[in-house]
């Protein structure tokens, strides 16, 4: 009897407390639950140098506006979760660049909304977390996204080496005349006859610029010619690395011609690193010393026209060469001969007349023909609405 009375009282108390705690009026809807991200994957970032893990996922449908995804990482030995990033909805990927190669990590991703209330009524609702499989970062052997470039480079290499090989076997090659290069000997000969110097400006860039390397190759030929004829050569420099390299080029050329006695250190001289101070010095030298021939070969900027026009006013025969289309018109307007673009790179081979080097020019021409055909095919297909050429030639 006492047992029954105690249970009845307890039941009354429970109902009473439920009735007091229940809200009056209409019921408020519960806070919307944040969904879990779909297809969450953590994997080693492909085609990289290591130390990074790529997280990818898909946003779940009906995601409330303003939701972000919180990425967390657990690493040995404790495997405690540490927040690494908040990523906005719609991005769908995150690269963890703070990972270390060889360490096994686990990643967790969950939706979070700062303005929505959680189940306890506090601000900052959090959705259910999705945990990735264990993953470790490592460096890769190939950049897959550059495969098209690799294939093209290898094809070009094969074409070039094939042409060089054929030229080495004695195949007759037709190389068109390049007036500017044929005029090199003429210009130096003129300087010799007049008893005046030859100025050679190898551009204003360091030897890391391929145009400077091409210019140094031409300088080698010019220096050999001045050594043969006993003509004075002056090579003013703006870049210190080019200066030291050019000096060795000229020294070796004089040595190769058997005239080391004619080589003087001051032939190749340094002026200054400042572009316009350099121009002022070279232009002043041209006006004062009236060289018979000026060579402007290499990579130039605004100084191109100042140098070429000053040389023009002194009456020197001028040969210029650059691959920069923005400076070419100035040289064309102010110089007697201009090596345009690829002619600059072909000059070393052309002047040496070595079959092996001439073979490489043929290889370049063949590659140009292939590119031209590829370009035409791409234009036609793009006109017809197919963009295969764009995706084929796209590089990253």
């Amino acid at each position: 009897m006492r047992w029954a009375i105690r249970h009845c009282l307890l039941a009354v108390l429970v109902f009473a407390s439920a009735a007091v705690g229940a809200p009056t009026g209409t019921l408020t809807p519960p806070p919307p639950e944040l969904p879990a991200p779909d297809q969450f994957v953590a994997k080693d970032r492909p085609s990289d140098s290591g130390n990074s893990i790529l997280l990818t996922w898909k946003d779940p449908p009906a995601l409330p506006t303003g939701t972000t995804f919180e990425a967390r990482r657990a690493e040995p030995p404790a495997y405690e979760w540490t927040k690494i990033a908040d990523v906005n909805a719609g991005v769908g990927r995150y690269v963890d660049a703070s990972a270390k190669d060889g360490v096994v990590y686990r990643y967790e991703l969950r939706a979070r909304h700062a303005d929505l209330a959680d189940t306890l009524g506090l601000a900052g609702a959090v959705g259910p977390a999705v945990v990735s499989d264990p993953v470790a970062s490592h460096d890769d052997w190939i950049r897959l996204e550059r495969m098209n470039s690799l294939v093209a480079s290898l094809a070009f290499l094969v074409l070039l080496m094939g042409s060089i090989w054929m030229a080495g076997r004695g195949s007759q090659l037709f190389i068109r005349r390049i007036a500017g290069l044929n005029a090199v000997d003429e210009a130096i000969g003129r300087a010799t006859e007049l008893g005046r110097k030859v100025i050679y400006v190898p551009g204003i860039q360091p030897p890391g610029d391929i145009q400077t390397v091409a210019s140094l190759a031409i300088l080698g030929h010019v220096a050999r010619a001045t050594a043969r004829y006993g003509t004075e050569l002056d090579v003013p420099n703006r870049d210190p690395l080019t200066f030291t390299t050019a000096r060795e080029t000229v020294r070796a050329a004089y040595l190769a011609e058997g005239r080391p006695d004619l080589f003087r250190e001051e032939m190749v001289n340094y002026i200054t690193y400042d572009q316009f101070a350099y121009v002022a010095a070279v232009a002043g030298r041209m006006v004062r010393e009236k060289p018979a021939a000026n060579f402007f070969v290499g990579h130039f900027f605004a100084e191109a026209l100042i140098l070429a026009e000053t040389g023009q006013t002194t009456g020197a025969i001028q040969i210029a060469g650059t691959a920069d289309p923005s400076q070419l018109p100035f040289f064309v307007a102010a110089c007697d001969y201009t090596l345009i673009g690829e002619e600059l790179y072909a000059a070393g081979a052309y002047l040496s007349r070595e079959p092996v080097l001439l073979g490489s020019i043929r290889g370049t021409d063949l590659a140009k023909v292939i590119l031209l055909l590829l370009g035409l095919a791409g234009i036609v297909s793009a006109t017809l609405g197919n963009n295969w050429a764009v995706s084929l030639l796209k590089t990253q």
Partner: protein
Amino acid sequence: MTGLHFDTGRVLLLVCFGIVPLVGIALGLLAPSLRRQMPLIVAFVAGIVPILSLYIPKRFLSAAGEGMSPRLDQYLIIVAGFALPLGIVNVIQINARKVGRTEKGWVFSLVLLIGLLVMGAFGIYGAVSGAGIGFLPDGSSTPFQWMTDWLFRPLQATIFSLLAFFMASAAFRAFRARNVEATILLVAAVLVMAGRVPLFDLLAYPFPPLQPAAASLSQMMGRVTEWIMDGPNSAAQAGIIIGAALGAAAMAIRVILGIERSYLGLGKGD
């Protein structure tokens, strides 16, 4: 594993750019022909490493800051740092000799030497004293900065401004209609210039009734200019750029493989 990769790159670089050149110098003392081969080996390695790093992302080769390729870039900066004093010594040697022998133009050399020494002295003083080479705490200029602002920059601007005059004289020479090509050039140049400046608006300025017609003519010239620049001009430029890019790649391959040696002053049979 990470340490091993790190060391691989460093060891390879040390071998290629430390031991190989030293062996080359040592061999060169015995046989000059061997000395000539060493720069070619160094050029091969220096050229092939950046190309490989373009396609192979392995840590020892390409990782930022510690791979062989980024380290090579750092080496270049170090080598350039050593090359600059060589250049300065060369400037002093040549100009001091000229002044000493009172050769023609020795006064210019004297001015150059004074400028070099004064600017250099103030720069070094600023660095050593901790005052720097920019501005003092009270906002006033250091002597180095003062000379930069009031001597160097005006001189620089003077030389740069010469471009305007040289451009006019070069254009005058280039646009003379001597043959068909030069005439086409002249016509294209006139059209582009007319489209880039409000020429017709200026001409019609004194005649208000003509101004609407001038405005539409200016717009038309603008469209013609745009067509010339975007059409024939960029097509020609693209041709030059493609040719130059292939030429540059071929040149790089020749240099890397040691086929092209004229930049070393060497020719056939050397």
